[in-house]
Structures are given as C-alpha cells and as structure tokens.
C-alpha cells in the first residue's frame, strides 16, 4: 500500500485505500480500542500491570477489543493513562488507572457511562459522538496553552505501527524532499524557517547543514544526538517512544539535505525501552523501503543505525559523542575544526538533537513560512520542555517560542503542588540557571534567556517551591557536573571540584570558630565568583563553560540565602542538615529516653523521667531525635 499512498497526491487515492487510511487513523473503528500509555513514564507508574488487568477483563467478559501501547501524551503525573474508544464515540482519556481501577473503568465505559472518578478529556473525531461533561483535549488547561508540533502524535498513535504514521501523513515530507527538491533546496528551506538547534547551543540548523553540504567529501555523516542525560529531562525519550517515525523521517530529510547516506542515532544505554521502540521502527521503515539503497527509485540511499552510549553526560557534547561512536574515550575535542567540516572518522558530520530533527518533517510539509510564523523574532517554532519538580502536573509540554515562564508554571502545569509558594524555576538542565519569581515574565526565547544568564538548554524545567534551599540546589547541580566532567581540561576538572567543596563547606555544620577552617571557608566563598569566571572563560567544551551557571545564577537571584548560610549559619528551607539545630523543650520532654538511645553520636544527655538536653557541639543535625520524639518536645531551629 505504501507506494500508492506515498507516491500519489492525497486526493488521488482509490476509495478502498481511503477506507483503510480512515481505519488506520481510527476515524472509524469496528471494535473497541484501548490505548495505554506505556512509555517509560507509564511503565514506571504501573502500566504493565494495567495492561494485564485489561487483558484479563477482556478475556473474562469475552469482549473483543484491541489493546494498543502508546507513548507518553505528556501528562506524566497522570500515568498510567488509559484511553478508550468505543465504536461511534470519541476517544476518551482517563488518568491514574492502576490495575485495580481497570474493572470499574471498563465496566462503565463499555456501558456508555463514565466511572465515578470522571475522565481527563476526550479527543474529537469526525462523525463521532461526544461524551457529555468531558472537556475536549484542547480545552484542558494543560493542553490549551500548548502548541504541539513535534509532540502532535505522541501518545496518540501506535509507535510500533508505521502504517498509522503514514496514514496520518507521515513520510510524505521525506518522499517530497527526495523526489521534488535538491539537497540545497532543503538546506535553504530549513534556513528560511529559522529553525535553531534544540539541543542547547541554538545554532541555526540550516546554516549547519549548508556548511556540511558545501564541504566536499566522499563520505558524510548525520548523527542524531539522543544522549539525553540532564537530570529531569526526558523529551528525547518521550519523543522516540511516542512517535519514532517522525525522527526517522526527519533524519532521512536531513541526510538528504547534507548529502550523507549514513546516519547514526546515538542513544544512551539507560533507555532500553526507547531503543527497542526505535529499533522496531527502523526495521519497519527498512521493510517499507524508506531506509536502504535507492529509496523509491530516487537514487538516494540512506542507512540508519543505532549506536549506544555507555552513559556519560559529556557524550552529549558533539565532539565527545563523535569520539564515542569512533570507539574512543568520550572526551571533547577542541573546535575548530567543527564536526560539520571534520567530524566522525574525519568526515563532515552534522550532529542534531532529536527534537531538531523531529521538527523537520513538519517544516518541509507546511513550508518555512508556517514555521516562521510561530515564535519570536529570533526564536522560531516551538520548544518541548520536561517539567519536573514541585509543579502540580509534571510531564512533557510543548509551547510556542515566546510563551512566558509564567504561563508555563501557572497555566499549563497548574502552579505549585500542595499550595506551597513558588520559589524558583531552573531552566536549561544542570548547567542552566535558577530564576526567581521576578523572572517569570521572561518568555521562552534564546536571546531573552541568555540575557538573564540562563539558557534554553535541551529543555529541562525544574519548578521549586519554598521548601527548596537554593544553596543546596547549587550544590546538587555542582556535584552532578563535577561527577560528569570528563576530566580532560583543568578548569572544569579541578575548578568544579573546588566550587563543590566551597558549597559543601558553607552547608556543613560549622566547627569551632576559633579554628583555621572558618577562615578558609570565608576565603573560599570569596573565591567562588572568581573561580566561576575562569571556568566559564577557559573550559574546553560547553559542559565546562556553563558549569558555573548554577552557582552564578543562584548567587544572582538568591544571594541572601547564601549570606544566611554563611553569616547566620541558617538554612531557611531547613534542607541543609548541617545547619539545623535541635533544642529540647523541657516542658514537653517526659524523659522517655528514646532520643537518648537513638542519637547516633551520643549528643543527648539526661536521665529517665527528667528532661533531656542536646549538646550542640556534638550534634550533627541528623534529625533522628526529632523523628522519634513522640511528644513533639524537640524543636528544630
């Protein structure tokens, strides 16, 4: 069927084909279909058990229905999400369907009613009946303010079925590109669209492609960087798990545009689910003749292979990634020469992020003007973010460039969980910046973020509430970066280590002030900014150059918290254990001796039935006494 669909215009299909396509798009179904969110986030929430429960229910009740595992729709905090579509009615989504809730849910839906918990939303379909009192997906606040281009089909289509993708217009751009355009046309088209690299650097994609296109060589390579390792980011994973063919199509177009016929997806070994989904998709595309020699008689050959990264953060840096694919130690190389000129095995190589490549089919399909119309003056299109932390809804969102952080935090993800106060938002991964409330009016834009000392990064957004200590946050990210530094260049290797030590020293329990250590500590703090500056100025790769960002940005926006830690020896969020002091309220203490017995350092003295006392010099602030006291007699300061 593929040839007839891909090689003809939409209107030209015979009726039988059109009917098949409608079935594939599920505009018409013959038996009920149950979709289960079974991406990595779904599995973590228990979707495997949910699926077994569904199958059991169907067997018991002798109902014939298709069960389809789909990727992540983005609302990860509501996983496992189960969508049900019964013939004639709209597809409807239900959240948090753990195995125990399956029977109730399916009982209700197959009887054309809703379960007590209600539904999340429904998808409108042509000629299908609406569920009453259930909002459309586009009306739900989480989706209303989003602009889904890359994620358009994520969580909706079956990622393991290439025909579904083709039925929804997939691979049409690829075929159009290799049949109707020259390589240079595509480079120009992407350049005009204003697409910039979504991996963090923000280099114009079209220009990068043109450099490789214009570099003469017998062999060129395309690499898709799916080595997503920032803590709290999962855009690439969700995208590949939800809609792998979009990536393959984008890579096909990119390879054609730069003149590469060998492409690699560099994916981290920690993504086994993602890898198997992608492998399946690649083999399907191969079976359909969309990967291989002389694709659809166009004369263009395209081979795609997966390369597995052993799990180093720095291998997300393109030169380190290339070293890793070559089988060398994953350390960055000095640039120039840029990979676009001299990359993998010394040949011109384009390295693009998953999201960048996933944007390409839509741009080729809808034209550069369509893409250009979205976003701000120097940032076009949309951006996918992985929102984690203390937000009410966490998950994957896609917004048009120019959307303010406020919209994201308060409208899309529903503000802060548990009615706490907003404190900070961390954007751009571990080497991004922590912004405070005053920065929420900033919009998602490469320039605007850079002006605030932040960066777009690959798209991690961590929402923090008042129970977060910003010094602790800086320490966490510094620790991460220090562990993940490849160790090649001195500023990053030694500098991040010293910065981490300084942060540790100000969050540690202060020792006797008379000792030399106090002086060293103050000296260290004075050095923080200077160290940060040199690391940023001199490091070899982007990881090192941005490594001081967590410290610099928290120092900029939350300086008073640092000062409290240093001068008042106090952590306002109560996170830094070393700075906590515990005092026993003598009126409440009954002398039960439980704290006396539990204290790991024997810092509590007292006798039975008499109030106890904590020796502050010995106390390490672990809080065990606080946790064990049954009479609330221990106060934390």
């Amino acid at each position, binding site marked *: 069927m593929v040839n007839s669909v891909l090689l003809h215009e939409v209107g030209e299909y015979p009726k039988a084909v059109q009917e098949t396509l409608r079935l594939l798009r599920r505009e018409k179904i013959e038996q009920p279909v149950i979709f289960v969110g079974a991406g990595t986030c779904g599995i973590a929430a228990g979707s495997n058990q949910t699926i077994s429960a569904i199958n059991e229910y169907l067997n018991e009740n002798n109902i014939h229905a298709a069960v389809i595992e789909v990727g992540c729709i983005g609302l990860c905090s509501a996983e496992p999400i189960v969508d049900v579509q019964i013939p004639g009615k709209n597809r409807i989504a239900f959240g948090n369907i753990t195995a125990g809730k399956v029977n109730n849910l399916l009982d209700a839906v197959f009887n054309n009613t809703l379960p007590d918990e209600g539904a999340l939303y429904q998808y409108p379909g042509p000629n299908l009946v609406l569920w009453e009192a259930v909002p459309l997906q586009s009306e739900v606040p989480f989706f209303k303010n989003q602009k889904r281009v890359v994620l358009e089909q994520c969580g909706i289509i079956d990622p393991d079925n290439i025909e579904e993708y083709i039925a929804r217009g997939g691979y049409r751009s690829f075929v159009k590109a290799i049949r109707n355009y020259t390589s240079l046309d595509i480079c120009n088209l992407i350049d005009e669209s204003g697409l910039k690299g979504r991996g963090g650097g923000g280099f114009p994609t079209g220009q990068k492609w043109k450099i490789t296109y214009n570099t003469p060589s017998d062999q060129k390579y395309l690499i898709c960087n799916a080595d997503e390792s920032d803590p709290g980011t999962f855009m690439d994973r969700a995208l590949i798990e939800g809609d792998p063919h979009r990536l393959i199509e984008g890579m096909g177009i990119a390879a054609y545009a730069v003149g590469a016929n060998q492409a690699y997806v560099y994916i981290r070994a920690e993504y086994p689910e993602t890898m198997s989904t992608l492998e399946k998709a690649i083999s399907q595309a191969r079976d359909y003749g969309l990967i291989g020699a002389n694709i659809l008689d166009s004369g263009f050959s395209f081979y795609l292979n997966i390369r597995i990264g052993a799990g180093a953060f720095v291998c997300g840096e393109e030169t380190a990634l290339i070293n890793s694919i070559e089988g060398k130690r994953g350390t960055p190389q000095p640039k120039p020469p840029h990979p676009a000129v001299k990359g993998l095995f010394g040949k011109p190589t384009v390295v693009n992020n998953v999201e960048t490549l996933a944007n390409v089919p839509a741009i080729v399909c809808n034209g550069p003007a369509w893409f250009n119309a979205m976003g701000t003056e120097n940032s076009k299109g949309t951006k996918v973010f992985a929102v984690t932390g203390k937000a009410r809804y966490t998950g994957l969102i896609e917004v048009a460039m120019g959307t303010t952080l406020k919209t994201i935090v308060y409208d899309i993800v529903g503000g802060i969980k548990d009615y706490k106060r907003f404190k900070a938002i961390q954007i751009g991964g571990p080497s991004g910046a922590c912004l405070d409330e005053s920065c929420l009016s900033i919009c998602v834009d490469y320039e605007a973020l850079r002006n605030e000392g932040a960066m777009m990064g690959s798209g991690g957004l961590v929402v923090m509430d008042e129970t977060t200590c910003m010094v602790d946050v800086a320490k966490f990210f510094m620790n991460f970066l*220090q562990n993940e530094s490849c160790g090649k260049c001195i*500023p990053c290797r030694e500098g991040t280590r010293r910065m981490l030590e300084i942060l540790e020293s100000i969050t540690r329990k202060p020792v006797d002030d008379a000792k030399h250590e106090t002086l060293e500590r103050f000296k260290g703090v004075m050095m923080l900014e200077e160290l940060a500056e040199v690391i940023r100025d001199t490091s070899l790769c982007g990881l090192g150059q941005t490594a001081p960002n967590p410290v610099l940005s928290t120092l900029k926006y939350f300086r008073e918290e640092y000062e409290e830690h240093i001068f008042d020896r106090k952590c306002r969020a109560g996170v830094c254990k070393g700075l906590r002091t515990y005092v026993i309220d003598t009126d409440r203490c009954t002398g039960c001796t439980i704290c006396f017995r539990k204290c790991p350092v024997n810092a509590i003295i007292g006798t039975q039935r008499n109030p106890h006392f904590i020796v502050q010099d010995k106390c390490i602030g672990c809080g065990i006494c606080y946790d064990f006291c049954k009479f609330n007699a221990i106060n934390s300061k």
Partner: protein
Amino acid sequence: MIFNIEVNNKEIKARKGETILEALERNGITVPTLCHMEGFSPTGACRICVVEVEGKNALIPACSYPVEEWMKIKTHSPRVIKARRTIVEMLLSNHPDDCLYCERNGNCELQYLAIGLNVRERRFAGKKTVHKKDLSSPGMVRNPSKCILCGRCVRVCEEKMIVSAIDFIRRGSRMVIGTKANHGFNNQSCISCGQCIMVCPTGALYERSRLADLQDALHNPDKKVVVHVSPTISVSLAEEFGLRPGKDLNGLISSALRKIGFDRVFDTTFAVDLYVLEMATELSRRIADGIPGPMISACCPAWVQFVETFHPELIPRLTTTRSPQQLMGALIKNLGPGLLNVDATEIFNVSVMPCTAKKYESQREEMTVNGLIHTDVVLTTRELASLIKLHGIDIQNIETELDDPPFNIRSSAGKLAGASGGIAESLARTLHFILAGDEMFDLKISELRQGNSRKEVYLTMGSHQIGIAAVSGISEAVKLMDEIRAGRKDLHFVEVMTCPGGCVNGGGQHIGASDRDIRARLKSLYDYDDKEPVRVAHKNASVHDLFRNHLDYPVSDKALAMLHTTFKRSNATE
C-alpha cells in the same frame, strides 16, 4: 597565504592554516603552554595557552585555534593572566606539596609556570587526590599523585610508540592515567622506552633509581665495581651540569667515575664494535644462505620487547647478537674473574645508559651467567649526573683519563651508535669489508644521517646490492614492517631505535632538551667520525684480541654461546 593579524596592538604576519601559537612564536611572542607538544595533535586540555580574541566570549586556546584574518589578539591582558594563574593555582591545589623531595625539583614545568605567573599565595585549599606509586617496572616509576593529566605521556605512547600502555581512566576529578586493569607497568604492554618520562612536565614519571644499590656496592670491600659507559653519554651529560649542549665530556667521565670509586672503567663503545662485527658476520651468513627478508637489529631493548609483545612473528628476523650492554655484561662476568683475579660473584657490573629500557633488559632471564646477573645496575644519564654531584666532583675542573683495558679501544663507528642510523652505518662499513673484501671508498653514508624517522640506502658490496634502512620511533618501524609484510624485498638490514632520533634522545637523557640540543649531541658524535683514524668496527684491535684469545672468530661456537641470546613471545597483551 600570509596576512596580518593584530596582537597586543601591533600587526604581525601570520600564515593561513597555522595555529595562533605558531604565529605568535614565530613573531617572538611567548605564551606559556603545558599540554602542547610540537608534532602531536593538539588536545586543548590544559588551557594555559589561552589568549583573548576580540569578538569571542570565552578565551581561546592558542595551541589549537587556527589564525584568521580578522583576529585581534591580546596575549597578556589582565583577564588572560588571571585565567592562567587561576588554572595553575587549581593544579597546585591538587598537587602534593613536596617539591623539595621531588625527582624533578628544579626542572619542573609546573614550578616554572608557578614562578612565571607569580603564584605567591595558596588561594584554593581542598582535598587532594592521593594515588599509590607504581613501582612494578624495573625501568620506570609512575606517581599519579603528581600527575597533572596533561596527557603528553599518553599521546607519546599512543602516537609515537603505538603501544598505549597508559591511558586515561575514570573521569572528572577521579580521572587518572593508568595502566591496563591497573596492573602496573611491568605486567602489561609497556616497553619501558621512557619517552613518557621525557615529556612529563612534573615528577609523575621518572626512572627507577638504583643509586642506593650502587652506593652499597661501592662501599662493600668484597665487591669489585666495574662500570662501562654508553657511547652517547659523553655528548649528552653536559646539559645536566648546565654546560653547552653537545659538549663532549669523554675522558672527564672516566676520571670522575674513578674518583667516585669504581675499580675499572670500561667503554661500552668497544662492545658496539663487537656487536657490529658479530652481527655483520651473522648477516653475511644469512645472505650467503639465501634467507629471505631483512635482518632486524635487536640492540634496542624496548624494540625487542615491542616485537615480543605485539609482533612475535618478527622474532626470527631479529639478530641474536646481544646488545652492547649485555655483550659487556657477558664479557665482564665471564672474563672478568681472570682479569681482576676475583670470583665472578664479587664483580658488580654497572652500566651507564641513556635509556630506561636497558634497566629492564638487564633483568631479562637470558641475561644471566650461571645464575649471576650480567649487569647488576643500570644507571641513566640523569642518575650518573646526580652521582657525580653527590660525590662533589666538579666535572669541569678535573683531568681527562683513559679507560681501562681490555675494553677501552673503540672505533669512531661505534660512537655513531648513539644516532639513529649509526648502527646501520657502522654495519654497512663492516659488511662491505666482509662481502667485498675491501673498505668502502667513502665511509660516510650521508643517507643514513639525514632525514627524520626513516633513512634508507642501497649500497653495492662486491656482487651484492644491499638495502639498509634505519627507523626511529615504533610507529615508523611498524610502518616499515607493514611494507615488508606486504612484499617489500629490497632490504637486507633494518636498524630500529625506539626513541625518535635514536639514543641521543633516549628515555634516560636530560629532560627538557630541545631539538637543537639533540642536534648538537648528534654533531658531536659525527665529529668523532670525522676526526679519528679508526673508523670501522672490524679494525678494532681489542675486538681482534678478544676473538684471538677467547672466542676464536665471529659467530664461532664459543661466540654463539657467549655473545648471543634468544627471544620469546610475550603474553603481556593477552
């Protein structure tokens, strides 16, 4: 293409394609470097050479960034100097503060940097990484605590020696340069060439010193301590005393050694003549027997170990003649008792070599006689210098002395052994005499003196057309071996020296010598050949005496028993 760039508000000329550092150096502007090595791929690891380039946000490493026409560079702006100093301070914050006890005290690039950047205060305190020393190798010691991870040793080992005995392991602040599975130098593929020592900026790599053992022997009245000095030492020791590079200290060294208390002072160059004569005879027999393929020299123990480890199929091609050091060892331990009127166990044989691999060679199982080790202690050039200093001898103000018979006479050809191509040249002269029956018309073979890592020459010797090649650096040797494996048949003899340029640049020589210093050493060696009357190994009277009195004739059964050795496959890489 030549264009102007602006550096420190002045225009300088730059060539397209060169790095900023090259342009600056040509124009006399010095920028400190650490990880940079000429002739090796830039890694941009140390960031010491950063400069400020207008229009660039970050500082730019001069060693790896190509010059471009628009560039306006500041090499010593306050921002640059602060960055460089902070980087050095960061290194120092993780460096053991034991300069006074350090092998490299006074000749340390980290010290030079700290002095040059005026580091006067410890601003960064913190934990220091402590590692165990690797004392497993007889030739070299590795002290990773002092390593600043510039990676120069790794690159030499990989790019020049293609051994890759050491590489980076782990990452971040836990990164360390280590050996395979952390088994120690001696238990894996290291060939002890010592080139890593030569490029190490700090005291993280140095030779395994045997001075203490030597001192014990010198003060032991029951021991007769004899010493023989490699042909290269006389032209390379001077630099250790701050004298002009290449200055010849022949005779002075002998005098100094006697003052130190050695009972006999011999010249290893005698053994080089013996080596060449024995090997030339061996080769002439191979040629007569029609054995195909070239014979390969085996005087370089690092090369021998490389062959045994990586290319055991080449073992039958190696000459079985022992290296000069071990020839001396065999002679001293076999004939010494008669010469010195003592028991063989009482002879303590010391050799002074420009080499760390010789320390390894002396410990090989084959290099013993009746359970006695042939060469008890091997000293490097550096150790000899500290021994002389230790004994308070002013090398410039002593009289020259002659070596002791019977191993004192040498030809100038033997002296050439210090240069890559020298053994080949000497062998060519003797082989010509054997094959053609007369001396070569012009003894100087310029083809074996010019060029870098590979030298080749074709000579007519009687009815034979003989092809001779000399290579230095294992990478070049392997290239040549690949050619031979691919069917090249025109070569009869290949001389391989592991160290680039030969023993004058050996792993035991003065650290910090420039290319020009090495050339000065070479010139001194070649000067011998121009000045002296005996220029061929086969006219060495002492060698003739040796054969007449003890060994009958070259490659006789007696000679085979005493002067030849065996090789065996090593399983170090398995």
